[in-house]
């Protein structure tokens, strides 16, 4: 997903939020299971953001919304990746059909799906 012009990078947001929590780089690197050197390179945007599961962990540790952070990292959540693999034809088609819908229209569709799933149980 393209970032809005002027939007902060993943690395910049990560450093800002980590510092706001007063967590040192080395400590945070230990918490997410990477080296301090690697994390410093990610924060400087010299390396691409980590994998989706690690981004999720980062968001959780910082008390942030993991879906937002996965979007910021330009990653696909692991569960979405699995769903697409399970329905390789239908899921991409569904996503293509939904492209361009308004938030309200998305809500209508989501509500329909919830009802269908409820009836199906």
């Amino acid at each position: 997903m393209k970032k809005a012009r002027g939007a902060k990078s993943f690395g910049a947001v990560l450093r800002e939020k980590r510092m706001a929590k007063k967590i040192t780089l080395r400590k945070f690197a230990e918490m997410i299971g990477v080296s301090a050197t690697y994390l410093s390179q990610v924060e400087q945007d010299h390396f691409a953001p980590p994998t989706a599961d690690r981004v999720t962990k980062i968001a959780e540790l910082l008390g942030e919304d993991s879906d937002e952070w996965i979007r910021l990292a330009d990653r696909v959540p692991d569960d979405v990746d699995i769903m697409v693999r399970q329905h390789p034809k239908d899921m991409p088609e569904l996503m293509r059909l939904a492209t361009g819908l308004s938030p309200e229209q998305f809500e209508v569709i989501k509500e329909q799906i919830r009802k269908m799933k409820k009836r199906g149980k």
Partner: protein
Amino acid sequence: MTMVVDLLAQGIEVPPLSSRQIAAEADAVLAEYAKRFGPIMKPPIEIEDVTTSVLPLTFGFSDLQSQLGGRVHGAIWFSRRHILIDDALNPDRFPDLLGRYHFTLGHEIAHWQLHRFLFLDEAGHAVLYGDDEMPDVICRKDHARPLIERQADEFAGCLLMPEWLLRPAWRMLTGSDEPICDGRLRELVPAIEPIRFLIDADGIEVQPDPIRLMREVFCESLADQFAVSDEAMRIQLEYLGLFAE
């Protein structure tokens, strides 16, 4: 470790700084760090955070030895506020060189803190005409030691091993605040296998000085605590007068 800088060719003279001034400059950086993350209670100093979260610098790794000639460890571009460390010191690839990587980063930070005013005007623009692609300071391992490099080494030592952290650690190790003389060290340090010290980290054969060797073996555990090399720790302890003949 000694370093030479490609500065003399540019005709730059570095003003002298006392040891007290250099230590105060390093302490000022650590005080800024403490403001952001809380008081520093124990080593090691988080040098990456100092670089990118306290100071307005970025850093990365590159094959400097190929790009700039042999035995280059680090380089800095003042106007870009960017430091490059040679790939050969990347601790993710060579964990044994973590201490030397930290010292090199501390050394480049020293150039920023102590020497940038020689290169940048108040607005942060370069004051020297030069090739923008080339670093302002290239630090090589060598035997000659111009003042600018000695100052940067001293600053790096004070930054990574501040006296107020090192003296308590020394007390824990030795049970005293007093220096230890070489005669006493001979009793404390087990027999050293000199073969392990014959090749330095650059793969260069060196003739180890037995006194330095003994002191470095003695302070190994302190070096580990502060995440610096045994050599850097030995030099800092000598600087504080804690090793005596």
